[in-house]
């Protein structure tokens, strides 16, 4: 059985991504650790992990997603075993704002520039620790139809690690 290591900012992200990954592909083992977005610890986790695939989840918080991806790549490469290892095992998934945008899109809510977690907080009293509860209810078809880039990349990576 293939394995995936996820790196997220906190355990609520970890539990959310693990559940979504299992819904996409039941034939993988998924591990997750948390590390600050800026931290070289992310590179250490990548280098130490023997997983077939390492998915780094990162919030862009409305910054340029490509720039955020370049920053992450630099952090990972700094500690990586080799350039080839990075090319072979690393997938960086960048959220326009944050992971809650999958929930917003799945529920077909309008956010008009607001932070997704704030929209959810206002509408349903959402708290950060509620994130994993939404994983079983995400409508993947809606996310695909709406071309949510971060989800499509995550799904593709998890389907074939």
């Amino acid at each position: 059985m293939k394995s995936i290591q996820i790196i997220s900012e906190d355990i609520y992200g970890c539990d959310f991504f693990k559940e979504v990954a299992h819904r996409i592909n039941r034939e993988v083992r998924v591990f997750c650790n948390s590390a600050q977005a800026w931290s070289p610890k992310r590179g250490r986790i990548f280098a130490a992990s023997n997983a077939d695939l390492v998915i780094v989840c990162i919030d862009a918080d409305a910054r340029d997603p490509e720039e955020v991806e370049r920053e992450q790549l630099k952090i990972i490469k700094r500690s990586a075993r080799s350039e080839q290892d990075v090319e072979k095992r690393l997938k960086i998934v960048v959220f326009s704002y944050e992971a809650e945008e999958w929930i917003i899109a799945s529920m077909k809510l309008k956010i008009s520039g607001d932070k997704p977690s704030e929209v959810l907080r206002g509408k349903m009293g959402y708290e950060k620790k509620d994130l994993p509860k939404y994983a079983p209810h995400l409508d993947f078809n809606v996310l695909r139809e709406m071309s949510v880039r971060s989800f499509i990349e995550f799904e593709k990576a998890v389907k074939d690690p």
Partner: protein
Amino acid sequence: MEIIFVPIDYKRVRIKNFKSLENVEIGLEKLNVIVGPNGSGKTNLFEAFLFAKSTVRPSIYPPYPFSYWWGYKNMVYMHDISRNVEFGVSGEVKTREGVLQSFSYSLAVNGAGEKLRIIEERLDGGSFRITRMGSELKVYLHKREVSSYEILDLRYSVFNLFAYPAKVFDEERGKWRLVLQANVGLLNGPPQVLVELDEQSIDALVELYGRLFSDVYLLKFSSDRARTPSVPGSIIGIDGYGLFSVLQEMYSGVGPEKKPEGFLDYFLDRFNIRLRFQNTEFQTVLMKLVEDGLEVEPQGIPDGYLKAMAVLYLLDLKPSLLLVDELENHMHLKLIEHVISAFRASETKVLATTHSPLVIDLAKPEELILLYKRGRSTEARRTENPEALKAELAERGITLSESWLYGSLSDEI
């Protein structure tokens, strides 16, 4: 939905002459990770809050806050009993309507001869102020003295000298009033202080008066103490004693209703743990744990699980400030990640002492409070330019803990 209400935002603290803290002032962020080598004063910083809380909100009467340190001499800087120990805090208090008001509070205490004397005290809540100097206490409104008292017993803080304040509406004048009832055995003067203030200021003062330091929780966890069967109805102590009782109240339908979906519930679900309680023949409560269907006796419960449960139970009580000494003790990285994620997701401000790289690497540079020993004194500082430090560490591939242990944060002020 449960309403989150954390009324006091403790923003700055100043401590003088407490153990190695000769003169330390720090600003408090949402999460504060206090790091330093052994003997640098981390636990002293933690205990300074314990001293302040046990002086202002004593759990025994008459108050004697020195017993934890076996006397005043052991808690005053350099054992110099001629010095006063001082503790000051400032911040904002929030009313239930969301109105913010700045406040500050300070006290200076001396315990020479093992006798508690509050030498100075000052509570400042906007236009309302109480000051004491020696045995003289004065109440001011808009900088104008409105009442004065002689304090008959110097062991009591202003929070004991007056009863819990009341807010009353004066129908005739159409104005709100704050009423502070003097404790006649402790104060010599008018039976009550009665001042006219706007409603929001009164609400803020009532919150402040009722909650300052009451909403500060401390945990210096001992797994042996937490594992000890406790008397039903106990509250959780600073060392974790009473954990079984408070969890029984929460999860067995005794006492307050089970909190829905709190941080502790999340932990138990995540690690697939169920709790079982048993009343012993000695009228105490012991707790067993069921993990993956297997029942584990109290002695077999992992220390880290007990520690995480104690921390998350306290977090669920929604204190304004939670202090945890030596956060990493007993806990594997998975539990540390869990607890720190909960700290960040909560409304509570947290101070955690540590010298563990595991904890430091989950922090941001701006969350670190770096302690150093200079001679016999502790000095504290924040990282000067956290964003530049992040960029530098990311560029060089150095973790925050490595920078603290071997690099630019190691021992320089």
